[in-house]
């Protein structure tokens, strides 16, 4: 449970893809309305950096996207979620998941120290 998108690290977003996500949507508060002043602005920059990484390594930048919503916009949230799910379904499984399903391999685990 994250209290603010400002707590999301780039590594957490990449981990989602390592753990098998085909797409990741990050939903923050409306810009200018952050309870912690600039958490959602920081999140936007981090999502952009992950976007660039995914593009560089051919996973696909369009598999991550940030939306901004207020807590009172439930219908809009549902609309965004459906829109993003449709987009990811059109893209199909990520190259990682395609490879894993072809090889029937589990996700590799990070070595524990």
């Amino acid at each position: 449970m994250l209290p603010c998108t400002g707590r999301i690290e780039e590594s957490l977003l990449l981990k989602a893809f390592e753990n098998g996500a085909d797409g990741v949507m990050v939903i923050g508060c409306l810009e200018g309305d952050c309870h912690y002043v600039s958490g959602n602005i920081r999140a936007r920059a981090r999502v952009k950096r992950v976007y660039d990484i995914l593009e560089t390594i051919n996973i696909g930048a369009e598999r991550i996207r940030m939306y901004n919503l207020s807590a009172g916009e439930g219908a809009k949230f549902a609309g965004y979620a459906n829109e993003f799910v449709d987009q990811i379904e059109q893209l199909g499984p990520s190259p990682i998941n395609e490879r894993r399903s072809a090889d029937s391999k589990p996700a590799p685990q990070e070595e524990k120290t």
Partner: protein
Amino acid sequence: MITGTPKPIEEILEMVEPYDNIIVAGCHGCVTVCRVGGQKEVEVLSSTLRLAREAADSSITIKELSLERQCDPEYVESMRPVVEDYQAVLSIACGAGIQFLAEKFPKTPLLPGINTGFLGVTERQGEWSERCQGCGDCVLHLTGGICPVTRCAKQLFHGPCGGSTGGICEVDKDTLCGWQLIIDRLKALDQMDNYGKLKPYKGWSASRDGGPRRIIREDMV
């Protein structure tokens, strides 16, 4: 601090291509502060490499670790129990740290994950600029605290050259003339007499001209 920039991921992927079992090693020193080689960057780079390699059907096992400093032997030694279990170490410390690991672990290939920059300061988040070239013969007390070796593109010691126009260096329009800065500062401090005290020549023997340098403090060894 010592600054640096990440190497392009394509270049790093090419470097690690022969290996399937590596350590990605960060440093909690300068490179953490300038956001290029700390624990967070270790995590991001490791995830990126795992994803890229798996997408290319060539998965890689990565041990993620970060030392307090890669330039001090006591911290480097903490890697020794694990380093030989891996085919290579990809270090995202500065060039000093990477070379120190290479010296301490001669059987393990060391790969640089960043391009080391300069001794500099943080202007604002995401922007750093050079302040010191470690010339070994500091004159900042005579130059208003502004270094002619670093801030003057020609490393002049006796005032601005003819390429200084309106306080801007001829090298590029975003570079201030170091000597204009020095003179403005000396005037503001009412220390223009220092301008005449600069040495007749700069003693470069303490700089890089004599090859790699060494400091031995007899009071400490």
